[in-house]
């Protein structure tokens, strides 16, 4: 009896993006299947100074957080502006996608996306210099993310 109207059940904030992890071991549809049932979110555009405590406080607003893994520069082993937030339930993670994604943490607009789940090694940036790829090539000056992008820094020297 409980008729659902597809036209009314739009819930687009919990869709996953076009990003696919290139290091994922498995086929594309396998990755998508994991994303559809995942309890883990990738969180991007963090300041390098944002702490685990701040992330915990914010993301606890959508449910109990199981674990937070702060993303690290592969060389320096310091925070490099992203993290993973794992929830105990899918529903809590969905609420984060609906209500925390696209709002501010540490005065920065943060972005969340579904993640296939933390595996050892995924906490490191994949850029050549050790941080995230996006910090290799960007041209703008961002004091909370090491200043200029790595390539731009080299040119300035």
């Amino acid at each position: 009896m409980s008729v659902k109207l597809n036209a009314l059940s739009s819930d687009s904030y919990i869709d996953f993006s076009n990003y696919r992890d290139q290091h994922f071991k498995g086929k594309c549809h396998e990755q998508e299947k994991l994303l559809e049932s995942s309890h883990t979110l990738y969180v991007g555009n963090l300041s390098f100074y944002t702490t685990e405590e701040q992330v915990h406080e914010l993301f606890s607003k959508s449910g109990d957080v199981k674990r937070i893994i702060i993303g690290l520069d592969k060389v320096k082993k310091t925070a490099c502006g992203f993290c993973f937030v794992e929830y105990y339930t899918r529903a809590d993670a969905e609420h984060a996608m609906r209500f925390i994604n696209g709002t501010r943490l540490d005065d920065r607009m943060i972005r969340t996306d579904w993640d296939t789940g933390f595996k050892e090694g995924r906490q490191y940036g994949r850029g050549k210099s050790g941080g995230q790829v996006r910090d290799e090539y960007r041209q703008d000056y961002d004091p909370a993310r090491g200043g200029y992008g790595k390539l731009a820094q080299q040119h300035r020297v």
Partner: protein
Amino acid sequence: MSRRRHSDSYDGGQDHKRRRTSEPAKIEDSLESLICNVGEKSKSSLESNLEGLAGVLEADLPNYKNKILRILCAVARLLPEKLTVYTTLVGLLNARNYNFGGEFVEAMIRQLKETLKNNLYNEAVYLVRFLSDLVNCHVIAAPSMVAMFENFVSVTQEEDVPQVRSDWFVYVVLSCLPWVGKELYEKKDVEMDRLLSQIEGYLKRRVKTHLPMLQVWTAEKPHPQEEYLDCLWAQIQKLKKDRWQERHILRPYIAFDSVLCEALQHNLPPFTPPGHMPDAQYPMPRVIFRMFDYTDAPEGPVMPGSHSVERFVIEENLHCIMKTHWRERRTCAAQLLSYPGKNKIPLNYHIVEVIFGELFQLPSAPHIEVMYTSLLIELCKLQPGSLPQVLAQATEMLYMRLDTMNTTCIDRLINWFSHHLSNFQFRWSWDDWADCLTVDLEKPKPKFVKEVLEKCMRLSYHQRIVDIVPPTFSALIPAEPIFIYRYADESASSLPGYAISITVGNAIKNRASNDEILTILKDMPNPNQDDDDDEGESFNPLKVEVFLQTLLHLAAKSFSHSFSALGKFHEILKNLTDSDEGKLHILKVVYEVWRNHPQMIAVLVDKMIRTQIVDCAAVANWLFSQDMAHEFTRLYIWEILHSTIRKMNKHVQKIQKELEEAKDKLEKQQHKRRDSGDDEDMEKNSEDEEGQLEEQIERLQEKVESAQSEQKNLFLVIFQRFIMLLTEHLVRCETGSVNVSTPWYKNCVERLQQIFLMHHVTIQQYMGTLENLLFTAELDHHILAVYQQFCALQL
């Protein structure tokens, strides 16, 4: 629901392609889309869109009648904010096809019966309202609608039924009258008068013990928090006095009057309300939240009065829009801001009032609280020139009235305001609130500011908070969240555990094994031990103290470091906390070292419960202990307690689910065996499997009982402690002839209420025990009143 990708430009993309391949599915989708989106984003008028759609659907009836019926029934239930749009559509279809009209009415009645059977009372209201508006569209004959209302109101004559049952039937009838009162009075005024008089009699004898528990403010001024039926009754009375003239509701059917009045009407079949079933879950009573009136909107249209029917309709529609669109904040905000008729009302004020009304609703908000924060941010984005000012005005008003605001609502206000500020660089005119510095810091206003600043700090960092408030506010700034280590330096060398703390610390740093560390700890003198205690088995608090302080000190850097430490030394910790005293002491130590960092205390307690280093009852006893009395009114204490209760509840639910699944498996297995025929081997295997399952079920059954017993015990501990504390206070006040109502007392009573309200579903199971053991007639009436108000919510 299928997953759809969308572009990387992150705003929660609203465009998506359906990956449907079948033809009928495509047509169904397209019909759904046509119907659900009628009038949206169109250059033509709503009326001409409806006319066009009616034509299309009429043509589709021969092939898709059932689909169309299904869709229209669904929009009646799921899109109540567009009620009159769809009643008009049904009216037009009925005018063109009388049989279809009849079938639609029948389908609606079937749906109404189903929703009532399934405890979907809120949706049932929308269905009845839809039917009543069909009277205006000449689909349903007025006398038959009146007959249905008469049957509903006759429920008030039933005996031995919960009051919430008859409440609902009265509510349904009254809430339809803004739409159809005029028409029904024109046709059947005698019957309607009789109906209203019956309702009046019912409302007079109705019991409202529950009311104080649901009110957001205890004060009557400036706006009384009215019981919802009382408010609606006043609104209908006023509407009747105005001769049922109602000018707010959008009525597209008026434009089609010449067509519609030619249509033949249907009679509603006689509808007997289904009888009361013991497992029925009627909606809980509510309080109408008001914070604005006509004096608050400085310019522009005037806000309709609190007893005007316009106010009711506007609030209903805004609530319905949020109910439909809460998952998509941009759509929700857009829909709220494009409310039809918005030019005649101060829409921003209505929206802010309705949102805060939901946020503060007791026992709980209809949606997760963070939704309202993100919705308000979205609204500020869409109306940057007007909405932020209304929101600031609202915040100011809420601050002014903190003294009489319910503690639970203050909690939600603290969480909302701090999170909101963190999205706007913490900009606020704190100086406007300098009055809070002149009173006792335990009073609601300074307490509120203190808690807000603490939450703001958690979302940023200590220095930030120092920077954003004027220096005069320094007393309200939270402490810097640093570890307090008892054995920090040589000044502590005279303390009994100092030497061992260094040894243990080094052992941990050098990755000593658990056994090695236990050996080191064995040498710890026990301050509790009697000299003639041979076995030396009694609990040694110093062991716990030294080990845990040292461990947590080494792991103080971050949450992850501390969790890792708890995990690595889990064995030792369990060893040290084998007794209840041990568990209590571990919590004491955690508090001592991290008392400047309540957030850390909360996450450590959470982790220790989940890894069974402490149990829930230990946490409850610790929070109520004398050592924690000075923290008793701080928000983080209650967050820890409620989180602990929730974990207990989830634990019980998890095991119950495992039990159900095992039972299902057994049933399936038994069916398989019955159907498998004569194969002896298969039969034997099956029997073995069944035997194993039966064993598993027995074990799980024991587990469930044990978990439920633990859960019941947890609530008993909590309620017992409340009763002790409150009784102490009341006796002290009585003997000293002092006024009972101190800020501490108000906080404590409302915290007790909060336990009942937040966990009412679970507590219901244990009402018998609670009444027999704790909430007996001998209890002070102040405390018993809380219990009685809670019981009244369900009656």
